[in-house]
């Protein structure tokens, strides 16, 4: 693979991907970064204002509120998704009956678009017509305005996110679990280790690489969340913004 001719070839193979990626991701990102130092109304020429935009965001209370909400969201969704998907994987990894069916069921939400998930959960958590409020009322509680009360809306968004992603990461954990050699468990059994000990001493440590991938991917996804929150809480025409990712839109700044 050392000849001159061959040295050019890999670049040709990556070229189409690189071009699309440069044009539609790198250039816009740099452009946006440059624009963030200007005041610009889209029509006239941008006016350089230095770090003015940054000062105005950092001093606006709504920025800090959305940042705080984003952190709350990410710091709850990531650990919850981790635990739930690991538990689901452990459950369907055992050789119980109907495990294939269970896997499929757990995976179904991961197939749905954020828009459809938003619609479905709005329907279930609706104020006057939602089935959840019906049950609350029936058992003597007061109905809750789930999606218009900030705290409750956050809870619903968190639950919907975990529900929507757990199946995907469950499959990753499943692959990780199946990569652990059976002999380790057999040896542990001979030594008299309980199931609990086996989990903490064998399963969890050996799942470390998978765990890392799951945590990284899930954190990235959570920081980026946008469409789910938009459809779940306000609709694209609304102005409410609950998490930073979604907050960028009404903020209108191409700032990073």
């Amino acid at each position, binding site marked *: 693979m050392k000849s001159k001719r061959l*040295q050019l070839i*890999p*670049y040709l*193979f*990556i070229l*189409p*991907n690189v071009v*699309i*990626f440069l*044009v*539609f*991701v790198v*250039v*816009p*990102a740099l452009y*946006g970064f440059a624009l963030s130092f200007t005041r610009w109304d889209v029509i006239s020429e941008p006016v350089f204002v230095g770090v003015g935009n940054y000062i105005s965001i950092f001093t606006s209370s709504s920025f800090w509120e959305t940042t705080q909400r984003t952190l709350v969201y990410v710091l709850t969704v990531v650990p919850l998704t981790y635990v739930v998907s690991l538990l689901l994987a452990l*459950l*369907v990894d*055992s050789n119980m*009956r*109907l495990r294939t069916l269970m896997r*499929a*069921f*757990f*995976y*179904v*939400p991961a*197939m749905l*678009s954020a*828009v*459809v998930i938003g*619609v*479905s*959960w*709005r*329907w*279930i958590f609706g104020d006057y*017509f939602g*089935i959840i409020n*019906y049950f609350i009322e029936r058992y003597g509680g007061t109905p809750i305005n789930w999606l218009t009360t900030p705290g409750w809306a956050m809870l619903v968004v968190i639950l919907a996110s975990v*529900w929507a992603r757990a199946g995907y990461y469950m*499959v*990753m954990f*499943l*692959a*990780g679990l199946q990569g652990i050699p059976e002999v380790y468990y057999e040896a542990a059994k001979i030594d008299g280790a309980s199931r609990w000990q086996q989990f903490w001493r064998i399963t969890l440590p050996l799942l470390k*690489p998978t765990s890392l*991938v799951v945590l990284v991917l899930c954190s*990235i996804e959570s920081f*980026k969340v*946008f*469409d789910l929150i938009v*459809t779940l809480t306000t*609709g*694209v025409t609304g102005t409410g913004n609950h998490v930073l*990712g979604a907050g*960028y*839109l009404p903020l209108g700044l*191409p700032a*990073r």
Partner: protein
Amino acid sequence: MNRWVSRVLQAAGLVLAVIFVLPVIWVVISSFKPGTELFAWPPTFWPKSATVSNYIDALNKGNFERYFLNSLYVSTLSTILTLVINSMAGYAFAKFSFKGDRLIFYTFIATLMVPLQVIMVPIFLVIRRLGLYNSLWGIIIPPAATPTGVFLMRQYMITIPDEIIESARIDGASEWRIFWLIMLPLAKPVLTALTIFSFMWRWNDFLWPFIVISNEQKYTIQVAIANFVGQFYVDWNSLLAMSVLAMIPVLIIFLIFQRHFMKGIAITGLKM
């Protein structure tokens, strides 16, 4: 004791599995209720007078068939493009060592972290400059260069022995022929997985079409549904039916190719 534990686990598993699909089932059931029954209080669980009128309404509303076809067109073409360019890039990263290979590869992967909504304004400007605004090509081309796809292809192709390529080279095969006639057929399992994933991503995608398309004739199904969700007034009858129709293609694909799906995710879960 062990028997008891496994019975309890079995029961818990089944209950959890049902809970997981319950929201979807509830939406499907509701979509068959006539308008009056939809908001009946107390709600009926099984539709008393099941009807497909919501579906007929949804199909008549706006240009539903159009949106559906747009989604199908965009998802199919974009998937083909993804397969070609991602497998090419994956091959280069797996089987060649060249200057900057690691840097370029990791930069690709790192773009997973860029939230599209953050660079929405400049993307819009670039799209418009290139004449892709309000064009379906604007949703087909840009998202086709998926980092996950490149990663999947690379991870799989690394496992294909180098000797096969070397011997083809000695036999005088051109680099393109080696890729096209030797590598791709060997990478069939991962290509299948990527086909399914890519179709699902594009079908479910909301942001790209949302940025690129403003002409209602060119809406994809996701944009159409999202636009249907107003803040104050929601036409639930049509919305539920539309949502169910939007779920169907991916659910069908999932049922047919379940194994490939699982395999694809398993490869993504491997460490780099």
